[in-house]
């Protein structure tokens, strides 16, 4: 089936893109297009105007800048997967990237596009929340930042206003004493998460100074679990502590049973994956080597 007809716009600067978004009647942004193109061709979405931002070269960067890691709107999943910077210090990003879709999808799909899509089973939202990240939204009235925690409202619905464009994601630079991990349960290669957990741990000597936990696929949006993070902060890391955090995360999750697993099963997997992600995050915070070289195996159903 073909997409409905639309007018195609190719801005080359953020300013032009924002201007188009503001002036056109029913515009849709196209970046990686790996979700948008199929929804358009099945006519689940029939925008009059498509604004393709792939030519906006100023949005193609993945870098540390001062105390922030910045990921521009044209950074593909594969760019994150291949980035030495990510592999060195951002374990949860390094874990999540290669588990998204398949190689062809990762070559095209963008991190920011995935966040803007706000699929409750999307991976990057949880990673962003666990890192206490934010998105930068540009509109005609200028720029504002939205904390990841406040971004996701409903499935496929964010706090973005009409005419706004996410130009970048930001997370605080990961220090030597910080580690993070992402554990994802899926049925097979290429699937969305049935359940996934992002965990981040920052150590201060023997104790945890700060932590972040966020869940994928077990609520109507990506879900931060501040109760679990609070429980970890100030405590001495141990298997028992991570088990307790897992219990709290499971209690805070609201999974729905479906053909792939019951709600009770998914809740139990939140508990298990939270422990695993915390164990990896802690290990990575303690060691100096690249994040990618530590960590337990990812789970696939049937393992």
């Amino acid at each position, binding site marked *: 089936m*073909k997409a409905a*007809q639309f*007018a195609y716009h190719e801005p080359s600067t953020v300013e032009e893109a924002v201007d188009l978004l503001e002036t056109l009647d029913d515009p849709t942004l196209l970046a990686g297009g790996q979700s948008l*193109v199929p929804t358009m061709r099945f006519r689940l979405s029939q925008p009059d105007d498509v604004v393709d931002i792939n030519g906006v070269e100023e949005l193609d960067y993945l870098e540390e800048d001062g105390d922030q890691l910045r990921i521009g709107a044209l950074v593909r999943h594969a760019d994150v997967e291949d980035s030495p910077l990510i592999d060195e210090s951002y374990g949860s990003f390094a874990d999540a990237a290669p588990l998204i879709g398949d*190689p*062809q999808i990762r070559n*095209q799909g963008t991190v920011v596009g995935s966040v803007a899509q706000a699929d409750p089973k999307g991976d990057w939202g949880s990673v962003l929340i666990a890192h206490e990240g934010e998105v930068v939204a540009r509109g005609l009235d200028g720029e504002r930042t939205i904390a990841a925690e406040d971004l996701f409202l409903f499935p496929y619905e964010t706090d973005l206003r009409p005419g706004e464009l996410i130009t970048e994601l930001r997370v605080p630079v990961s220090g030597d004493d910080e580690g993070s991990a992402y554990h994802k349960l899926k049925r097979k*290669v*290429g699937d969305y998460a049935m359940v996934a957990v992002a965990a981040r741990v920052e150590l201060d000597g023997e104790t945890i100074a700060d932590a972040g936990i966020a869940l994928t696929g077990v609520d109507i949006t990506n879900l931060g679990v501040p109760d679990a993070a609070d429980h970890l902060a100030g405590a001495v890391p141990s298997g028992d502590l991570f088990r307790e955090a897992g219990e709290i995360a499971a209690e805070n999750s609201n999974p729905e049973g479906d053909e792939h697993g019951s709600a009770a099963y998914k809740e139990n997997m939140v508990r298990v994956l939270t422990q695993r992600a915390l164990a990896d995050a802690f290990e990575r915070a303690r060691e100096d080597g690249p994040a990618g070289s530590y960590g337990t195996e990812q789970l696939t159903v049937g393992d």
Partner: protein
Amino acid sequence: MTEKTIAVTVNGTARELTVEPRKLLVHAIREDLNLTGTHIGCDTGNCGACTVYKDGQAVKSCLQFAVQADGSDVTTVEGMEELPEAGMGESDLHPIQEGFKQMHGLQCGFCTPGMIMAGKALLEDNDDPTDEEVRENISGNLCRCTGYQNIVKSIQYASDVYNDREPPTSPVEHEDASVETAADGGEYASGGGEPATDGGCDCTGKPGLSIDYPTGGDDR
């Protein structure tokens, strides 16, 4: 609706196409350029049969509009024999194509063009992949016949050719496949010397399957 003229280099030849913005890249390749080796399997981005090699990467040509390929360099399965690596093995084929042929990497042949293009992208980055790396790399390509074992071997065959190693011997009989009498007194169809393991399309993207003929316009 306004059409747009795009310039794309396809298999080394500069082409100009005038397309509606809503036309998918795979439709432009198959219908406007008549290059029907690139297949449409699922229409949803799952199966990978439409994989092409675009600007140094494997992409699914059913997941982007043709207008997005403006200025790009695209290689399809039909272009594989024109690449510098073609002929490195024992035939004029690209080593990956030769691998599929020698290692029995295809049965119905439907997924083969996509598998070959995914293999091309992998070997471009890493010409000596492990079994696991090959499997990861073709994880976006579905095959319903082979069980993947021989597809992995086919890509590794090409890797052997790239690295001047002796590739494994083909498990397929290629020589002297003359007409044989079957048990029921009939004849096996064996034609001119090669078993028809691949729907007659011998990994090159030339028409063999019914899908390999253009549908004749925009009436889908």
